[in-house]
């Protein structure tokens, strides 16, 4: 499974990527594989303030409905509107076109609590 080194990960299988002062959040390849075919993503409102581990959005697959938790706190500056009509992007490109939310006003200290790629890969080995 592909887990790029420039990302950080949570135990709930979200990924986060920092570009300057913006953080992009999505779910990992492992997560989309477990969920199976995603049929709907309920996105939050832009401008909303979110706590670390707060409910960021809801992903519905043919198998289940799951909450996605925010790896860090911040303000939602953009949501991926493409998912409204093409939720399958989460399955096909979980780390690129399937991103969900962009946050700003990032707290650096919270990032340190997240897993590195190496740690996340080890975590996945433990699950399987």
């Amino acid at each position, binding site marked *: 499974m592909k887990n790029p080194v420039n990302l950080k990960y949570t135990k709930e299988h979200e990924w986060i990527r920092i570009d300057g002062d913006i953080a992009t959040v999505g779910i990992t390849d492992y997560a989309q594989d477990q969920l199976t*075919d995603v*049929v*709907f993503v309920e996105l939050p409102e832009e401008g909303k303030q979110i706590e670390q581990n707060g409910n960021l959005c809801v992903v*519905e697959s*043919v198998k*289940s409905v799951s909450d996605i938790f925010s790896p860090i706190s911040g303000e939602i500056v953009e949501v991926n509107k493409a998912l409204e009509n093409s939720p*399958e992007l989460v399955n096909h490109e979980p780390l690129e076109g399937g991103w969900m939310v962009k946050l700003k006003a990032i707290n650096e200290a919270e990032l340190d609590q997240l897993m590195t790629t190496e740690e996340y890969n080890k975590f996945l080995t433990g699950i399987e």
Partner: protein
Amino acid sequence: MKLLNEKSKTGSSSFNVRLLDIQTNIPEELQRVDLDLPELSEVEVVRHYTNLSKSNFGVDNGPYPLGSCTMKYNPKINEVAAKIPEFNIHPLSQHNKGALEIIYQLQQYLCEITGIHAFSTQPAAGAHGELTGIMIMKAWFEKRGEKRTKVIVPDSSHGTNPASVSLCGFEPVHVITSQSGGIDLGDLRQKMSKDVVGIMITNPNTLGIFDDNILEITKTVHDYGGLCYLDGANMNAMLGVVKPGDFGIDIIHLNLHKTFSTPHGGGGPGSGPLGVTKELEPFLPNPRIIKENEELKFEQSNESIGKVHSFYGNFGILLRAYSYIRAIGTSGLRNVAENAVLNANYMKEKLKGHYHLPYDRICQHEFVIDDSLMPNGITTNDIAKRLMDFGFHPPTIYFPLIVKGAMLIEPTETESKENLDAFIEAMKVIKEEAEHNPEKLTKAPLNAPIGRIDIVHAARKPKLRWHSK
């Protein structure tokens, strides 16, 4: 199968509706001129609906081992009772005494069967009973001036349990399932505090296992002043054998449409009577039907959480459940539980070796298998679809959530040994096909009016209404 709109042919209707000259203030631009209704002859309409009804599958067509739903056969004597014209009365009619007597007696029977003090027949379904129960738990702690916020729910619970908890403003807290299939006592003890309103237990649980530690569980919750709620969906396994009141339950709902053989599915309607201890009785929905000096009367309690259904619940369903209990009697009730448990264990043992049993132990009225032994990537979904070709309604699939690829099988007590054997045989054939002929499974159902449905496409691009071209 075509829709009525697609079958429509202009001019083929067999009735002429007289146009009325209606005086109206509605502005012309808001009035519809063309209703776009299909035009068909009477015989075409009758055939359409008759063919639809023939494509349906119910317990009157064949076995329906849908786990946790108790799709037992509903004896027709229930329908005879429900059609007695004297019971077709308005609840406020002066001739309602017979109807009230039925409700009162049914409440008494349910009290006796569960070992619980008092029942309300108002809730219209299991989840409605749960909601009513959690509202009563809330009212109980509000009266005592205690602010509690959490309700413990096992990770094997029905999804309605945490939903009812959330709807009442409480936080559902999960306890994990132990390796033996019951509630993990250590985890429960860790999560208990004076902040816990109570626990919602399903026993036997959705793995079909009667919790060995049930007395210890209810004691642990009571030690912290919490209340114990039983989701009575699986009461079928305990009728005449165990009373939930004896293992520490304070609140319970029953599903008359499961355990007490009233119509189930297709809108029911259902009925989920709620029972409580003496301490909680004043909080039950108003009005209650009680008997004083041999006189039936309504009782209004100031502490009641209020009305949760018009009048006294779904009376026609109460009548059917009453008739079922009277028809089979006390020994019959115990037979129901014994045969339901025997049938499930028989089926489980016969499937062992062919299918993986995640919890390989004596079960109650239902049991779980999974698809971990299936070759060629065959999934639980494929097995379920193929079962339809053998004349069975598929069991519950992908539930409980704690078993990957779960198939929850509940044969019920009303299936004969021949039918149990036919199901077992079908499952063995399916296992063979998975090995040697997997495309038969991935393409199933092969004999149903509609074949394999693309559920992903249906969910991503749903067509919610018919559009004319």
